């Protein structure tokens, strides 16, 4: 099977994730930690992120249904979410988290809800793109996927 086109595709996909602002340099940090001893490090951390963030989104959804809104609780949840997101370099998601927390700070319910919808959209998009990326990487083979020099 001809791998080169796939490799090119992978590289191009990866590049677009950065160029379009979905990922920042923290993701590269993860890539640098991947090696023979930890050949799937990036995907493992990202998978952990999916689990962690899915749980937090669920909790946030519930919290946003309460009336009145508990901004302190919302902020706490989003603090966690932001932390996870920034740990994998999820740039756009992180930006929405920051915005959400600002709205929490000022008790702006509408702002929170609006931002959260946007955040979920960004999260879904990122997740889809990353899933595609890792799927392709797996097809290509263990060593050639995420471990790219800058």
């Amino acid at each position, binding site marked *: 099977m001809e791998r080169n086109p796939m490799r090119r595709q992978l590289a191009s996909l990866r590049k677009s994730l950065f160029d379009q602002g979905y990922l920042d340099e*923290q993701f590269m*940090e993860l890539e640098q930690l991947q090696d023979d001893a930890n050949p799937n*490090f990036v995907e493992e*951390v990202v998978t*952990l992120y999916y689990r*962690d963030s899915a749980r937090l989104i669920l909790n946030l959804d519930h919290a946003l249904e309460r009336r009145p809104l508990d901004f302190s609780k919302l902020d706490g949840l989003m603090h966690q979410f932001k*932390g996870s997101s920034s*740990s994998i370099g999820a740039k756009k998601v992180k930006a929405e988290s920051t915005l959400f927390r600002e709205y929490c700070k000022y008790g702006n319910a509408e702002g929170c809800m609006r931002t959260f919808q946007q955040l979920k959209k960004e999260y879904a998009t990122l997740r889809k793109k990353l899933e595609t990326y890792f799927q392709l990487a797996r097809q290509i083979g263990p060593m050639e996927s995420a471990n790219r020099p*800058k």
Partner: protein
Amino acid sequence: MLEGKQNGQVFKLPKVILLATNITNVELEKAKAAGFADTVIMKPMRASMAAACLQQVLGIGKKRQAGKNMLNGSMALQGLLCGKKILVVDDNMVHQRVVAGALKKFEVAVECRESGKAALKLLQRPYCFDAYFMDIQMPEMNGFEATHPIRMMESKANKQMNGGMDEDSGRKGEWHVPILAMTADVIHATYDALNAGWMDVSKPFEEAKLYQVVAEFFKSTRSNCFT
């Protein structure tokens, strides 16, 4: 707890390094009161920064050129860090994983705990860590609350070793735990730390300055307290 004496030599308690997202120069300068944390690092922690901090914290290696990729660094660094024991305390599992991954790269033995409470439990047993990476914004017990007991242990141990005399900066009987405290909100964390009189931070982004500050604190004895 804290075993590992060797022929009456001084042995070092682990060090604490503060990890933070941003900090102003003013805060930095003000926060240099010795005590709680020995240095500040931004969250999310850059893998390269972890290596740099550890290197300095453990008093090994020379200053690296700023901007160089630490992870492409030498076998020498790897060898020096190899076998060190680090405790990572962070309630964010993703970040914890990243920190552990960065440290393991250098064949550091990493233990992880999700809370200050759990971390302190570990200290009740005869563990001995060379450094702590401690998140200071955890819900139950924040990093300051978790490291206070560590500092207390230090003074106690110092007093004991010096036969009742407490020397701050003397090399003999000086236990100074390198604490790398991690936070995403350094400004507030700094104020808290300043108020508590605990914090000792350095600016994370400037690697050169980081080395300088960290080196000041860590040019003391090497750790004798590890396997």
